[in-house]
């Protein structure tokens, strides 16, 4: 038995395909990408090492980068906070009702499995000046704002709209994560708390919340990384416009890399994105994660 499990040839046969794919399509490209970020490199030339020049340009000259960083940070904070609150509220409400729980659960989860590209286009039409919401508002004699083209304020209206749409699309996932954790909590804990005179709100505060903390960390890091990588909805709702005001890091990277073919410059944006992802994961795991309680 032991000999069989130590069979070197078999281990090699089992691991090699995954290892090779991983190395050639993921690991080496990551290293290359970091290297390219220090190079002057476009579709026509070979990469030429120029040190930190790309990064210097990104942080000093590039106006769009500032907007993209601001929007990405807004997006990150908005989705982490709202998904946490809305996901918890929905999970708490749904675990407290009996009839129709599956129906509501499945309806709220539906957008998570649909293509963000298609949903982005759908919501783009909902918010176009002549159709959708503004058509409804016009019936009541209200002139609706230019939802996706307004440029006033520090965080402009289109960003709020897009962030809300992404909340609409992905809150089902946070809700399900919290529900899965809540349903794992033993009922006897709640019964004991009711005997001691707890109200439902109190038992939620003192039993449910502490016991789902590990899941809060998981859901938060999923949301945070997801919102940093965010591309499809923005690309299809505004394409970064008007005048790059709704660009985020991912759309900025796409434009620099595949519209202007500045590969080196785009790689620098990609590296910044990678570093941000690592930092965010680290922070969340460090400050939110706690040991699992016995349940």
């Amino acid at each position, binding site marked *: 038995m032991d000999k*069989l499990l130590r069979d070197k040839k078999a281990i090699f046969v089992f691991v090699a395909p995954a290892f090779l794919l991983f190395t050639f399509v993921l690991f080496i490209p990551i290293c290359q990408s970091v290297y390219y970020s220090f190079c002057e490199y476009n579709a026509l030339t070979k990469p030429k090492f120029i040190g930190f020049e790309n990064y210097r340009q990104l942080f000093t000259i590039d106006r769009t980068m500032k907007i993209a960083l601001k929007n990405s940070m807004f997006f990150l904070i908005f989705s982490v906070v709202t998904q946490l609150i809305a996901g918890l509220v929905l999970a708490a409400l749904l675990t407290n009702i009996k009839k129709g729980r599956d129906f509501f659960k499945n*309806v709220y989860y*539906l957008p998570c499995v649909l293509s963000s590209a298609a949903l982005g286009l759908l919501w783009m039409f909902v918010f176009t000046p002549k159709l959708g919401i503004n058509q409804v508002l016009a019936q009541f004699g209200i002139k609706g704002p230019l939802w996706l083209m307004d440029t006033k304020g520090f965080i402009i209206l289109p960003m709020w709209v897009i962030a809300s749409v992404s909340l609409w699309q992905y809150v089902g996932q946070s809700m399900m994560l919290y529900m899965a954790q809540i349903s794992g909590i033993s009922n006897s804990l709640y019964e004991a708390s009711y005997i001691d005179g707890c109200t439902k709100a109190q038992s939620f505060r003192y039993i449910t919340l502490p016991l789902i903390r590990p899941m809060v960390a998981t859901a938060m890091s999923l949301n945070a990384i997801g919102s940093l990588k965010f591309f*499809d909805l923005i690309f299809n709702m505004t394409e970064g416009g008007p005048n790059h005001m709704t660009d985020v*890091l991912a759309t900025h990277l796409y434009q620099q890399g595949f519209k202007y073919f500045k590969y080196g410059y785009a790689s620098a944006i990609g590296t910044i994105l990678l570093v941000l992802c690592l930092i965010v994961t680290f922070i969340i795991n460090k400050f939110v994660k706690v040991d699992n309680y016995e349940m």
Partner: protein
Amino acid sequence: MSKSGKKKSKISTKVIYVFLSILAVVYLLPLLWVIYVSLKDDKTLFVSPWALPEHLMIENYSFAWTAGKLGVATLNSAIVCGVTLLLCLLVGSMAAFAIGRMRWKLSGAMMTYFLTGMMIPVHCILIPVFTRFSKMHLTNSLTGLILPYLTLSLPITIFIMTGFFQSLPNELFESACIDGCSIYRSFTHIALPLSRTGLFVTGLMTFVANWNELLLAMVFISDDNKKTLPVSLSKFVGPYNTNYSQMFAAIVIAIIPTIVVYCMFSNQIVDGLTAGAVKG
């Protein structure tokens, strides 16, 4: 509980139901609106937005299906996602079997190596993989799309399947070994059949993620006949198209297959994807 307390909780239950129902409307209304507009005539759309369509404009659908190349795109998406799914389950569970069940020094290190892949955003590998693949003439081909999709799906597959293989009882493999079963046979005939739940969960996650993927497909494929569904849709519904009801029909074509499958297996899908996310 006192009588007034009971009454109070009844009212609060009603409030909860009202709130949940309003939210359900917010979720379903946009989808219904798209279907409704897609059946209308484009000319009447702005004149009488609320009137029911006089005759159903099925032509909108046939136009989007052929001229928008959504038919070809659906087929391409099905091929890419299907092949990726099968390969990913095979390659992923093979590696997971070696890591989870077999005994070798580097298995822990190998696991860490695969797991780092989960933190890496696809944007970072876009440029190197694209330049390499275009030298190898792998762009504009479905193979060129399957390879990165497969690789990006591997970490979660290996992670979940390793957990499943580790939870299998040792005795099973020992008795199989005594009966003269080879290690390959015990993988295909014992480990895989017993981990069907794991295969279902990971398969579902992989398929949904790849079916909806836009960025990579958009960069890698420029030939209209090789495009996948999200890409063709984004191209058809763009600033240069002025026929709204045809664009709406295209959106419906793109999301209807998923909605139908979801309605049939919603509980399994929701639970499966959640189980996967919990583990990940």
